[in-house]
C-alpha cells in the first residue's frame, strides 16, 4: 500500500473548497434562470441589479484568490494586485471601445469618442489589434503577466521581500494610476472607458448576453479555484509553502527560490487580469480609480477576513466584505471606511485565521462535544 500513503499527503481534504464549488454551481445555474424565466413582478425574480452585483463579487472573488495564492501560500504580500485587475479590465475595455464603432457620440468609425474629443487624427499604435476579440483576450492575459514577470524578476532577484515588497507594489499601482489619469496616455484619462455597446456582436444590455457573461464569471471563478488548488496540492505547491516558511532553508535544499516566486506571482497576476476583464463588460465602466492603492489594500483585507491560506476563505472574504460595503455605503456612506478599518484591526487581533478559521473551530468544538 505504499503508493496510496504517498498520495494521501497530496489529497488533503478540501471540504470548504468543494462546498464553495457546489455553491458556485448552484448560483451559476439558478440565478440566471430566475433572472430570465419568472416575470418582473414574481417573488422569485432576480433583478439585473442583483445579478450584476453578484457577478462583480465573483470577479472580486477571483482577485482575492489571486492574492491568497501568493500571500497565503508564498508569503508575498502584494499591495498592488489591483493593478493587474485594472490592466486586464483596460484590455477588455479597449476591445469594447472598438466595438462601439460609428455608434459613438461623434460617429467616428475608427476613433473612440475621447480621442475625437482630444482632436486626435489617428489611432495610437497600441490600439491596433483590439478590434479582434481573440487578440484582446490574449492581451488580457499577456499584459498583466508581462508586468508581473518584469516586476517580479527585478524584485525577487534582488531578494526584496516582506514589507519592502509590499511598499513597492503600492508604488507600482500608484504610478500606474497617475499614468492612466493622463489624457495623453491614450486610455481616456480620468473618465476611462464607458458606454459600451456590444461584445462579439451581442448587445451588452440583452438578457442573453448578461446570462452568458454571468455564467462565464462563475465558471472562471470555479476554474481559478481548481487551478490554484492544483498548484498548491502539487509538489511545487509544497516548495512554495516551504519558501513561505523558511526561505533560506529552501534555497539551501537547492530550490531556485526566486523562480518559484516569480512563477506563482505571474500566475496570480493572470488570474487577477482575467477577473478584471470579466468585471468590465458587466459593470460597464473602467477608469483609473481601479488602480488606486486603497483598492489593492482592500483586497488584502478581504483575504485576511475570509481566512488567509485557504483559497476558499479568500472568496468568502471577498463576498462578505463587499456585501457589507454595498450595504453600508448605501445606508451610512460616511461610516464605511471606518467600518473597514475596524474590521481589519478586529480580524488581525481576534480572528487570525479569519471567518473560515472561526467556522472550523466551531465545527471542531461541536464534534468534540459529541461523546
Amino acid at each position, binding site marked *: 500500500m505504499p503508493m496510496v500513503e*504517498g498520495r494521501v499527503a497530496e489529497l488533503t481534504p478540501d471540504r470548504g473548497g468543494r462546498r464553495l464549488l457546489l455553491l458556485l454551481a448552484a448560483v451559476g445555474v439558478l440565478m440566471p434562470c430566475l433572472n430570465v424565466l419568472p416575470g418582473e413582478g414574481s417573488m422569485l425574480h432576480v433583478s439585473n441589479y442583483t445579478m450584476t452585483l453578484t457577478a462583480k463579487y465573483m470577479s472580486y472573488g477571483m482577485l482575492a484568490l489571486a492574492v491568497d495564492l501568493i500571500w497565503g501560500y508564498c508569503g508575498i504580500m502584494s499591495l498592488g494586485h489591483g493593478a493587474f485587475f485594472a490592466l486586464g479590465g483596460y484590455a477588455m475595455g479597449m476591445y469594447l471601445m472598438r466595438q462601439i464603432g460609428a455608434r459613438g457620440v461623434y460617429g467616428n468609425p475608427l476613433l473612440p469618442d475621447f480621442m475625437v474629443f482630444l482632436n486626435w487624427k489617428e489611432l495610437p499604435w497600441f490600439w491596433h489589434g483590439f478590434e479582434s476579440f481573440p487578440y484582446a483576450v490574449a492581451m488580457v492575459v499577456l499584459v498583466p503577466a508581462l508586468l508581473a514577470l518584469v516586476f517580479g524578476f527585478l524584485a525577487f532577484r534582488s531578494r526584496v521581500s516582506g514589507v519592502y515588497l509590499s511598499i513597492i507594489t503600492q508604488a507600482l499601482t500608484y504610478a500606474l494610476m497617475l499614468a492612466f489619469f493622463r489624457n495623453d496616455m491614450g486610455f481616456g484619462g480620468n473618465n476611462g472607458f464607458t458606454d459600451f455597446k456590444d461584445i462579439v456582436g451581442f448587445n451588452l444590455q440583452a438578457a442573453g448576453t448578461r446570462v452568458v457573461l454571468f455564467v462565464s464569471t462563475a465558471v472562471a471563478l470555479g476554474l481559478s479555484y481548481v487551478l490554484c488548488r492544483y498548484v498548491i496540492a502539487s509538489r511545487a505547491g509544497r*516548495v512554495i*509553502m516551504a519558501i513561505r516558511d523558511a526561505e533560506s532553508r529552501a534555497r539551501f535544499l537547492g*530550490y531556485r527560490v526566486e523562480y518559484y516566486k516569480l512563477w506563482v506571482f505571474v500566475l496570480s497576476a493572470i488570474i487577477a487580469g482575467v477577473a478584471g476583464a470579466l468585471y468590465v463588460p458587466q459593470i460597464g465602466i473602467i477608469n483609473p480609480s481601479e488602480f488606486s492603492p486603497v483598492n489593492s489594500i482592500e483586497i488584502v483585507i478581504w483575504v485576511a477576513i475570509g481566512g488567509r491560506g485557504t483559497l476558499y476563505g479568500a472568496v468568502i472574504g471577498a463576498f462578505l466584505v463587499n456585501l457589507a460595503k454595498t450595504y453600508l455605503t448605501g445606508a451610512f456612506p460616511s461610516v464605511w471606511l471606518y467600518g473597514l478599518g475596524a474590521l481589519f484591526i478586529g480580524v488581525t487581533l481576534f480572528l487570525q485565521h479569519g471567518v473560515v478559521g472561526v467556522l472550523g473551530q466551531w465545527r471542531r468544538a461541536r464534534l468534540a462535544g459529541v461523546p
Partner: protein
Amino acid sequence: MVPKNTKGMMLSLEGITVSFDGFRALNALNLYLEVGELRCIIGPNGAGKTTLMDVITGKTRPDEGFAWFGQTADLLRMSEPEIAQAGIGRKFQKPTVFENQTVFANLELAMAGPKTVWKWLNARITPTELDRIDDTLRKIGLNEHRFAPAAILSHGQKQWLEIGMLLMQDPQLLLIDEPVAGMTPHEIERTAELLVSLAGLHTVMVVEHDMEFVRSIARRVTVLHEGSVLAEGDMATIGADPRVKQVYLGE
C-alpha cells in the same frame, strides 16, 4: 599538489591554517577520515571545531593547507553549493524544518534531484522515491509520525528529521554539529543508535560536547585544542592521555 595519504580516505585535510585578525582558529591542522568511518571531534570551546566544519563546507577559506574530498575533489577550489552537490551534507546545531508541513513532505522536499517549477508541478512521487522516503523514515524512527506536521515534533524528533533531510540528499560525508544538545537521555540513546547505523553507508563526522554521548558512539575520537589535533584514537587511549585530561576531560 596532492597530499600523500588520500588513498581510501573520504576526507584529507593537511596543514590547514585559518586566521581571523591574527587569531589562529586552525593551526596547521591534519585530519583524515576513512571511508565509512564514524568520527567524533571533541575539544574545549574555541578549539576550532566549528571553523573546521566551515572549511570543509567551503564557508571559510583557509590561509594555507590542502583539503581533499575523496581522491579527486579539491574542496578549496569549490564553491559551497558545489561542495554540497559533490556529497558533503551539514547539519547545523539549530534544526530548521518546515514546521507547517508533514514529516513526509519535509523529506520529500529535501530529496536530491532536479527542482524546477514545471517538473514539480505535475510530478507524482515515484515508487523509488517513496521507498527512499520510507527507508529514511524508518532510519530516523519517525515512521509513525509521517503525516504529522513537523511543528508538533519534540526537539529531539526535529533533530532526527533534520538528519533525515540530510540523508535524502544522499551525501557521502555527513557533518553533524552537536546533535544531542537539549535532548532527553532517551533521545540521546536513540540518536547514538541512529548515528552508529549510518556509519558504513556514509562517513559521519560528529562534533559534540556531551562526553557520555561521545563515549557511547565513538570508535575513533579526535581531540582538537587551539586549532590543531591534540590526540586521536579510541576512547580508552584518549581517556588515558595526560594532555587530554589536562585540557579537556579533567576540567
